[in-house]
């Protein structure tokens, strides 16, 4: 296995920025080092070959960036999170005539579709609009199609059952050409668009922002910037949902939120 060292990683980050404009400087170095080393192993490259690859620019450098930033997800990941949303957040959201939710770092849409199902079963979906954003156009294209391999649907169905779903997950997709296609009725109130949490700004005001397992990509300084963006994107009394192991610690916004669920890191903006 080829292992990169930190100095080599820094040179790589600089070169990627020069060639593509994409800036990894706010990303957590230990994870980047691991991901970049795995990229080399997967593509049986050494560092020199990776440089040659990146120098090609275009699709080649984009592929590298994509593999280092892609956020792996599942529908109804952490079932207890969805149970808590149903019992502790939805009643509040129901008081709004129009509900805007943002799934930041949505990858191929798993969480956005999960929220859509949750809202549908609570009778709120018709007046909801879910924005799913990611910095990768490739995963967004996949999200817009709403297509998943059947192999994944087994895990997703198990998660849905654990999340106390009211029906069967198969009620929300159909199978075509050995793949699961999320029903168009669920997709109609979801907008998938490009957004880079490290560079782009506020684009709307939301009643709920879900940004789960994304903060672990960033270093301390960048993490604070992203928290500021999420804070400014929330309306007063809006909800911020983080990953199961991501707290507001070191965010600089600890005082601006009250804890709705400490175990699941659901917070409400109070000032």
């Amino acid at each position, binding site marked *: *296995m080829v*292992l990169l*060292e*930190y100095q080599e990683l820094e040179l790589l980050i600089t070169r990627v920025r020069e060639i593509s404009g994409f800036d990894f400087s706010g990303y*957590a*170095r*230990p*994870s980047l*080092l*691991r*991901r970049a080393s*795995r990229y080399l192993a997967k593509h049986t490259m050494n560092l020199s070959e990776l440089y040659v690859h990146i120098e090609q620019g275009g699709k080649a450098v984009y592929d590298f960036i994509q593999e280092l930033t892609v956020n*792996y997800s599942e529908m109804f990941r952490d079932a207890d999170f969805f149970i808590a949303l149903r019992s502790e957040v939805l009643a509040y959201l129901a008081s709004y005539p129009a509900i805007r939710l943002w799934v930041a770092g949505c990858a191929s849409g798993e969480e956005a579709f999960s929220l859509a199902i949750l809202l549908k079963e609570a009778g709120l979906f018709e007046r909801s609009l879910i924005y799913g954003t990611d910095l990768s156009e490739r995963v967004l294209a996949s999200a817009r199609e709403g297509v998943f391999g059947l192999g994944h649907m087994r895990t997703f169905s198990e998660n849905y059952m654990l999340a106390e779903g009211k029906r069967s997950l198969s009620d929300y997709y159909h199978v075509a050409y050995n793949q699961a296609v999320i029903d168009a009725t669920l997709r109609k109130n979801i907008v998938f668009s490009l957004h880079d949490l490290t560079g782009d700004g506020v684009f709307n005001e939301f009643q709920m922002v879900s940004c789960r*397992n994304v*903060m*672990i990509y960033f270093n*301390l300084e960048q*993490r604070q910037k992203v928290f500021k963006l999420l804070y400014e994107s929330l309306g007063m009394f809006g909800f911020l949902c983080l990953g*199961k*192991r*991501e*707290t507001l*610690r*070191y965010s600089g916004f600890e005082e601006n939120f009250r804890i709705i669920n400490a175990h699941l890191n659901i917070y409400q903006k109070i000032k």
Partner: protein
Amino acid sequence: MTEPHSNPLNLVLMGGSSGSFVIFEQIVKLATKPLSCAVIFIIHRGKSSLANLPYLFKGKTTVKMEEPQHLDPIKNDCIYFAIPDYHLLVGPDERFYLDDTEKDFFSRPSINATFISAAQSGINIRAAMLFSGASQDGAAGLKLIAERGFATYVQNPDFAEMPRMTAEALSQYNGHHILNRENIFEEIRSVLYST
């Protein structure tokens, strides 16, 4: 007047899987007085495991125990346990980093992930140890740590409940110290309290 300087960080890394839990409990019990190192345990657990190891081991040691979160600083005199479903990485800035890239040998947390990141961090590793388990995880990381000049130990496969993990480590690198049944805990205690 000079500022009192804190002791430099030293890591003691422990990895294990099936059959290691009992050993880990015994090791925790060895920590009977303050440690001049941070002890980091990585044990394979399913993603839905709710076991809170600091809680389970409460009362077995007087040393502080934690399940670290992303960016928590790593400190001497603390025992850390990797949480399920994330790799636990050691950063050169002496902080923990959580990572959710794919599993190594079907495991997240993976022992290799922590061991390799620690070896690359530049932080002093007093020792790294590998115990019973049924997978190949940990072997590559332990080898890297040994190659960088740090002390490495494996439980003798002959008395490991699941010998595959330590046997794999020895097959990849034969310079690891062997922890035998007769003296395993004496040796570990002397590592924990060496200076």
